[in-house]
């Protein structure tokens, strides 16, 4: 059918579906729920309830999401490795403003990423946020000093091994309690006082590992794209 008719039909259909959902939501009321957030914080030792949920209560889901992330990164690298690079080999000379500001900003962004990852159980943040922020700092570095320079520091067999070792370590942290007679996916390290930095060491460890994994994965994706398409 003709395009304006199709557009209008799509809009009406989507709004209709949404209208049904709205009706459903406004008619039903959620039942009153007891507030057990204090219990959650004390049990896990993490005041940040979101971290407590996805790294303790819902750890199983987080493992599979890491698996999806790993597979997607592998797919990107695989499909972009066989194509000949169509990029111009001469890098674009960057202005001195960008280079100077990147020299100042990049350590700060890295520190921010580390803080978000390591203190994710105390304040907003977490492994995913920390890894992504650090990856955007790497992107700033690439834009200012060129891809080859950054790649020469961050490539090599060590990084590759780290990339597949990290999911293994995360799975190991989750499976290890089995060896000690505890149920799987539970805490092995002792839970301290809630609000203390080392109050929930397993959540801290998992945040750090996830942050590192997300950083390396995003860096791999960015490198594949920039190498294949040319510098920004």
């Amino acid at each position, binding site marked *: 059918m003709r395009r304006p008719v199709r557009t209008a039909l799509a809009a009406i259909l989507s709004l209709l579906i949404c209208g049904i959902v709205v009706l459903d939501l406004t008619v039903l009321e959620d039942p009153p729920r007891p507030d057990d957030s204090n219990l959650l914080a004390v049990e896990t030792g993490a005041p940040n309830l979101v*971290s407590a949920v996805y790294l303790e209560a819902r750890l199983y889901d987080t493992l599979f999401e890491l698996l999806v992330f790993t597979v997607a990164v592998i797919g990107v690298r695989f499909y972009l490795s066989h194509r000949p690079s169509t990029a*111009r080999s001469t890098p674009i000379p960057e202005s001195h403003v960008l280079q100077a500001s990147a020299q100042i900003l990049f350590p700060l962004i890295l520190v921010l990423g580390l803080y978000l990852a390591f203190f994710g159980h105390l304040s907003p943040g977490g492994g995913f*946020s920390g890894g992504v922020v650090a*990856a955007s700092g790497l992107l700033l570095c690439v834009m200012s000093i060129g891809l080859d320079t950054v790649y020469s520091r961050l490539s090599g067999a060590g990084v590759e091994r780290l990339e597949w070792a990290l999911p293994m370590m995360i799975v190991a942290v989750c499976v290890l309690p089995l060896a000690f007679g505890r149920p799987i996916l539970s805490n092995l390290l002792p839970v301290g006082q809630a609000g203390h930095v080392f109050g929930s060491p397993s959540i801290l460890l998992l945040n750090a590992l996830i942050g590192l994994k997300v950083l390396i994965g995003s860096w791999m994706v960015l490198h594949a794209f*920039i190498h294949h398409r*040319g510098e*920004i």
Partner: protein
Amino acid sequence: MISRIVLLLLLPIIAGVSLFQRRRLAAVIGMGLFSLVLAATYLLHSAPDVAVTEAAIGAALVTVIYVLAIRRTGRLLVVGDEVPGLLSVEGGKLVGVEVDILDGFARRLGFDLSIQVVPLKDVERTLLQGDADLGAGGLSAQPGASLHRSRAHLPTALVRLRPKAGLDASSEEAPAAEHCEYPGYFSDLVEAIQRNDPVEATLDMARFLAVSRTDLSRWSVDRLDVPRSYAFVAAPRREDLRDQLTAYIDELEASGALDEIVRRYLS
């Protein structure tokens, strides 16, 4: 409270405007802005973790990989003069037979096409200086050494225009130029002819067709009996470009697309 409502109202506006843009780059940047406003909305909905993640991903990483994915690597720089039917500016856009051929060629190579209008006499000089990759715009003369001429895509003939007022009995036949030449830009020449300025020019058929719409009673029009044809000219040391262009025009001719393009603009 107010800021939350304002941001919530802003979200569909930004999304609707940016998704229905004509250019892809505008849409990508609009969605980057949308991610930023969305991150602020998450913050005002008491979800700070989600806000930090969305801001870092949506505004920085996603926009960058979209821009990298939609860019065309490389540019093809073409210079030429305007010729109605082959390469002319109509309504702010360049249209014509040669524009279509060059557009398809650039798309084939994955290059961005950039056409600049320069006077006819400057085309060869620009190519020799290395400021352009291809010459277009109804070139029918044999180019100088070190320039490479592609295969012809249209035959043409030459017409010589001389003002009748200057043709006295004492005028001897100045040797007709064997190639198309006129001073400056073609559009200036058309205006000069319309003003009845005494200009002399040798034009090829496409240009002459454009000029012949005005009243030419004050000029003597002689048709020169030399066969010529339009072709593109490649810059020095770009024989690869010339070969690829020749192959592309061969393909167009074999599939009949060349005739269709010519018919669309020059019938």
